[in-house]
């Protein structure tokens, strides 16, 4: 039955090879088939995780560490489902715009499938080095996908991302080498004897992951990359692929962190700074896609709050917010991309009257926006509430203020956009939509935004899965 775990990585990979080998007129169909097929393996996998807590697999029965070990727990399952949903929505969106005979389609579909494969492979890694390989693959494929936009700003953004990504993986790899030298093991598990790691190794690994996760002030590559990437790519990167490094950071922190340092405070402070800086920057951006990109900087900061608030409830809250944020952010990126194609611009100043011209997109932006703000009954409320509760119980006032501030500041940049689309005085302006997006593309974005809301009304199953995932280091 653990074969289901292998399917999660190998099915999208098989689709990838099929796309490369078959003539390009089949690319789209094969890509969609592959992306519909692999989530089927998630169903038995989810059932197993619910029954047993975690599923492990040693590929080809080679013993770890020479072989490759995979492990899936509740957090992984939730993130894998998110990847399935966002990848499918992005595929619907891309399928509507990529003419299969066009030149770009030949490079786009293999890379798209490879991004899904790499994300899954990195998520299920059970050791530090496989995680490195997965993260490196994600970075390379992301850069290639951003570069498919094939214009100077996109290529510059891709190049900057690649250089910083390589720098980040260098630091991470150096840390991994130190861990192996110290413990003789690469396993992503509590080290034998429960000894805390050498803090140099820990800080090196965390720094590397912070570059890849775009934690303030190491976020400089993010706004340009996500802002210039084609719509579906921005959605998948911001929702899942870019968050893998953050998930890895959580895991490594809770497995290896020493008890008595100022590190949690430092990481929490970086998170708080990210919340403030990212939100303020999102407020002053002139292009919608960049507003959404800067909002990612703020949300990454928010998700770091779990480090100083270490507790199973905080971990549940952060995991839930990761899922909800993924839905909302992907919906916003897809809607922004539809707007950009339809109107020829995504300048915030040109969005007036959008609720009449593109009602589905305006509705999507509003739904995803209030989810990010965390208003009940959306999913955004649950994660925030859990973290708030923990901060209150632990008397972590600084984190309490950050969490509240995060909601308030998100409201500021979300409502600026909504006010522009619905209540601008020039409301009666042109109703023309130069190039209407396909209905499927609009609905894909709307469906993701709805997922973010509906999950807030039925959070039970997800929270139960996440409760199984609370790592050993969380007391």
């Amino acid at each position: 039955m653990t074969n289901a775990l292998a399917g999660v990585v190998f099915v999208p990979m098989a689709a990838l090879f099929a796309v490369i080998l078959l003539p390009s007129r089949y690319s789209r169909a094969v890509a969609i088939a592959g992306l519909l097929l692999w989530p089927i393996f998630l169903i038995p996998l989810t059932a197993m995780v619910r029954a047993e807590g975690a599923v492990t697999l040693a590929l080809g029965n080679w013993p770890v560490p020479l072989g490759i070990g995979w492990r899936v727990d509740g957090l992984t399952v939730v993130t894998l489902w998110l990847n399935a949903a966002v990848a499918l929505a992005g595929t619907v969106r891309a399928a509507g715009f990529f003419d299969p005979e066009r030149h770009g389609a030949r490079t786009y579909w293999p890379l798209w499938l490879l991004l899904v494969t790499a994300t899954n492979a990195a998520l299920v890694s059970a050791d530090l080095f496989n995680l490195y390989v997965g993260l490196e693959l994600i970075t390379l494929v992301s850069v290639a996908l951003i570069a498919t936009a094939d214009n100077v700003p996109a290529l510059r953004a891709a190049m900057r991302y690649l250089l910083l990504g390589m720098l980040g993986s260098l630091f991470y790899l150096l840390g991994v080498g130190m861990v192996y030298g110290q413990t003789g093991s690469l396993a992503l598990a509590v080290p034998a004897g429960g000894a805390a790691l050498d803090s140099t190794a820990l800080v090196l690994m965390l720094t590397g992951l912070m570059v890849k996760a775009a934690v303030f002030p190491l976020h400089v590559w993010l706004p340009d990359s996500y802002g210039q990437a084609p719509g579906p790519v921005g959605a998948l990167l911001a929702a899942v692929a870019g968050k893998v490094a953050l998930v890895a950071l959580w895991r490594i922190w809770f497995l290896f962190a020493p008890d008595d340092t100022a590190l949690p405070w430092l990481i929490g402070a970086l998170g708080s700074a990210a919340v403030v800086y990212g939100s303020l920057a999102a407020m002053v951006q002139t292009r919608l896609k960049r507003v959404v990109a800067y909002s990612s900087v703020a949300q990454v900061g928010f998700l770091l709050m779990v480090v100083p608030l270490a507790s199973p409830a905080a971990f549940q809250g952060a995991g839930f917010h990761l899922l909800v944020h993924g839905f909302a952010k992907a919906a916003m990126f897809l809607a922004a991309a539809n707007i950009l194609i339809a109107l020829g611009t995504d300048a915030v100043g040109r969005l007036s009257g959008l609720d009449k011209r593109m009602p589905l997109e305006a509705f999507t932006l509003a739904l995803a926006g209030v989810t990010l703000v965390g208003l009940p009954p959306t999913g955004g409320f649950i994660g925030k509430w859990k973290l708030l509760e923990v901060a209150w119980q632990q008397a972590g006032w600084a984190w309490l203020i950050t969490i509240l501030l995060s909601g308030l500041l998100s409201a500021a940049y979300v409502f600026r956009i909504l006010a522009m689309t619905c209540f601008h005085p020039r409301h009666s302006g042109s109703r023309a939509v130069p190039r209407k997006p396909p209905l499927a593309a609009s609905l894909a974005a709307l469906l993701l935004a709805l997922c973010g809301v509906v999950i807030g009304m039925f959070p039970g199953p997800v929270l139960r899965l996440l409760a199984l995932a609370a790592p050993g280091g969380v007391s």
Partner: protein
Amino acid sequence: MTAELYVFAAAAVFGIGVHGLLIARHLMRKLLAVNLMLSAVFLLLLLFSTPIGGKPDPIPQALVLTGIVIAVSSTAFALALMVRLFRLSGRATLPRFEPDDD
């Protein structure tokens, strides 16, 4: 003493790489700098786990081999990206400040 010598050498190479990555303008130089840093990391990876004159441990060597494969492909890809950027923009450097609207 030999071990310390290697560590110092790796640290020096790493430092030169950091300097190059931050200071150099041309992308080719930046890529060379990243590759220097990679060499230093690979050297350290072997040093941390293998005592000088002791029995070699195969695992770090497997890791370094994988790392070299990744480094080669990343560098090749980065070079292709650089060439494309040069063809489109006429220069193989990144601007220090990216204007918001394009």
